[in-house]
């Protein structure tokens, strides 16, 4: 097994473009780490540098303390798990899983042992002597996964391995990968542009933007304490709602309704000497239909009046989309940049529409005003100039 260290790893192309800038990270033996970011964030380039497919321009890559910058992919003993594997129709499941080990000239007893173990892990022991045509889609994917597992590498590297599966199979395989990793305890680096995949799979997540590491932390840390606007917008689905505002006299003044901020928030902000202009962020799930919030909880927040133009009921929850006054253009520059990068340019909550995730018991009606409660303790504030989180 492997502990992997990225020490200021940089990828610079001959024309000077930096695809990855000084990425540093200690990945513990057996850890499941996810590199996440939008297209062009450098996540795949970073993975390819770990795999040995891209040369490292500066910095060091160490596996179990040994510098491997110049070692070939094979010498690093790490397995790139392919997006999809072809299963060979005339071969049994057993043969489909075993044949890569024959190229590696492993002894037949060892091959049999590894295939048996992998099949047990993947719960396909009963299918070992079947042909792929007799398997379900999920079983086929498990056989493909088995082909990677039997190699017994020091680490698995996965670059969007689920991206060409249909939605149902993707969810099944996500669970399967997570369970396997917990059982095998093989260090795993997983690249995805899908924040849901990142949140559900990773022990820790590294968020990248334009080749620069933004934040590394557990899924909950990233969700609760995003260090900047980008991470706040990228993590969470639907995305966090953003709106420019001002802080004055312990009050948050913004285009919705002015409201007091909790005392402890104000205390932290005062200690930081935060600027007057801020960007306010609030997650859809930190709203609720005020009629459903009881007294004690209600005290923790503020109530505003809104008129939703669209209500989407998913059975377990209701999404309410309501228009908010459009802020001045200059204040929106950074927000629009972030929205474009996280792919939320047209999404509700990114510009002049907010989205609230409400209990299915809500009585809100499309086109009718109602009282919306928001948890002011959960409000996120960001520096309007730099996008950095305030009051953490």
């Amino acid at each position, binding site marked *: 097994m492997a502990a992997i260290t990225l020490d200021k790893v940089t990828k610079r192309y001959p024309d000077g473009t930096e695809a990855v800038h000084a990425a540093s990270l200690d990945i513990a033996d057996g850890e499941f780490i996810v590199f996440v970011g939008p297209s062009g964030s450098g996540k795949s380039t970073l993975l390819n540098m770990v795999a040995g497919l*891209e*040369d490292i321009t500066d910095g060091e890559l160490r596996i179990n303390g040994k510098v491997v910058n110049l070692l*070939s992919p094979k010498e690093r003993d790490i397995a790139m798990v392919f997006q999809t594997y072809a299963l*060979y129709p005339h*071969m049994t499941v057993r043969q489909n899983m075993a*044949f*890569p080990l024959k190229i590696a000239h492993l002894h037949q007893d060892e091959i049999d042992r590894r295939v048996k173990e992998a099949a047990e892990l993947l719960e396909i022991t009963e299918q070992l002597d079947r042909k792929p045509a007799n398997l379900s889609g999920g079983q086929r994917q498990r056989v493909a996964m088995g082909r990677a597992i039997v190699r017994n590498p020091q680490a698995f590297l996965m670059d969007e391995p689920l991206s*060409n599966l249909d939605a149902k199979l993707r969810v099944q395989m996500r669970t399967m990968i997570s369970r396997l990793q917990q059982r095998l305890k093989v260090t795993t680096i997983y690249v995805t542009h899908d924040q849901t995949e990142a949140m559900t799979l990773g022990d820790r997540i590294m968020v990248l933007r334009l080749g620069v590491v933004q934040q590394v932390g557990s899924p909950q840390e990233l969700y609760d304490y995003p260090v900047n606007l980008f991470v706040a917008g990228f993590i969470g689905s639907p995305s966090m709602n953003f709106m420019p505002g001002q802080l004055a006299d312990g009050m948050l003044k913004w285009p919705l309704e002015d409201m007091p901020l909790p005392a402890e928030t104000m205390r932290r902000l005062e200690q930081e000497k935060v600027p007057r202009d801020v960007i306010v962020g609030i997650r859809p799930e930190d709203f609720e239909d005020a009629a459903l919030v009881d007294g004690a909880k209600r005290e923790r927040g503020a109530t505003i009046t809104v008129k939703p133009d669209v209500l989407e009921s998913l059975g377990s929850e209701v999404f309410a989309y309501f228009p908010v006054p459009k802020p001045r253009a200059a204040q929106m520059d950074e927000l629009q940049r972030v929205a474009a990068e996280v792919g939320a340019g047209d999404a509700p909550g990114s510009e002049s529409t907010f989205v609230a995730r409400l209990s299915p018991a809500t009585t809100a009606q499309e086109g009718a005003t109602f009282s919306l409660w928001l948890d002011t303790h959960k409000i996120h504030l960001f520096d309007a100039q730099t996008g950095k989180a305030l009051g953490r």
Partner: protein
Amino acid sequence: MRFVFSPPAGEATGLLTLPWTEPLEGWKDERLVEIRQRGISRHVVRFVSDNGVLYALKSISERLARREYRLLRFLAGLGIPAVEVVGVAVDLGPDADAILVTKFLPFATTYRAVFSSPRGGGPPTDKLLDALVELLVRLHLSGFFWGDCSLSNALFRYDAGTLEAYLVDAETSEQHPELTFGQRHYDVELAVERVYGELLDLQAGNLLPADVDPLEVAGELQRRYERLWDELTREEIIPPDEQRFRIAERLHRLNELGFDAEEVELIAAPEGNRLRVRTRVAESGHHSRELFLRTGLDVSENQARRLLNDIASFRAYLEQKDRRPVSEIVAANRWLAEVYDPVVAAIPEDLRGRLAPAEIFHEILEHRWYMSERAGRDVGTAAAARSYFERVLPQVPESLDTAAGSE
């Protein structure tokens, strides 16, 4: 539904009436055909014959479909052998995949068909490996990482008895300015594993000749790749007094391998001059271009080599007969009019389409050689052609695109 295609693709507009919003797997349309002995595919792939053109339709996520569309167009721009992409259909319904449309390569065959009906001399594995390795090297020279090089992901065309490979599947490919050693190494490693798997699969289905050892063939792929890569890219130090001869020798060797030099660089070094050759990656080789300039025939490299040799023999025959020198261009034009075109015109109607005309001509020349040897005299091309059309061509399986039968 939106169908994005790159003009000109006028004929593809006939495809617009297909039932795009239905899942491809369940399509029912009289234009759907089956291709026998196809390679292994991870996705739903179906074939449609419309207006005399055969199309391959692959159901795949929109992101991958658009990427593959872009990459195949890029390869076409470079002149690297790959299937021609027609377009991509998107917005086919909620959660529906996109459909990538490519043209099925005329006169193409698959590795499985090559094994079931081998043509020409020599083991089919040699030809398949050489073709696949040459394609992989061309891709790598252009900075293209295939990511899934396999026999299933290529189509093959006969080229004077040898094979020429065309890339079919680029869904896992990446385009880079230049490939690193690690990328090339990994791509070859993937190819070795996949070819091994495909041959084992044929073996498991009793479709592989008994004398073919899948492990040996897979290992040979790597060795051949390394040899060809080294031939094409190695830098060598040459003493100044051998410079002219050694450069000519190197360029000749490149041409022999079917490649051309794009640029030759000489760098002064204390021990002599360092010779660096940048190889042109486009498919059209030296002989192919030469034949095209002389006759207007657009054929593969080895076919061109064969036809040029025949033109040279014909020229010698003319000079001997007329007792005066005949220029290359005159000889080529007379050969076209008096030898090649009449043979091609004589191909029986019902046997047309089994092989490309240049390949048929090549096989007739081979047949003529065997007939002449048996007869102890030159039987001539016309007699050889008659015999070939009668005895050999009817035994050639129909090409996969013409044999495609309605479902």
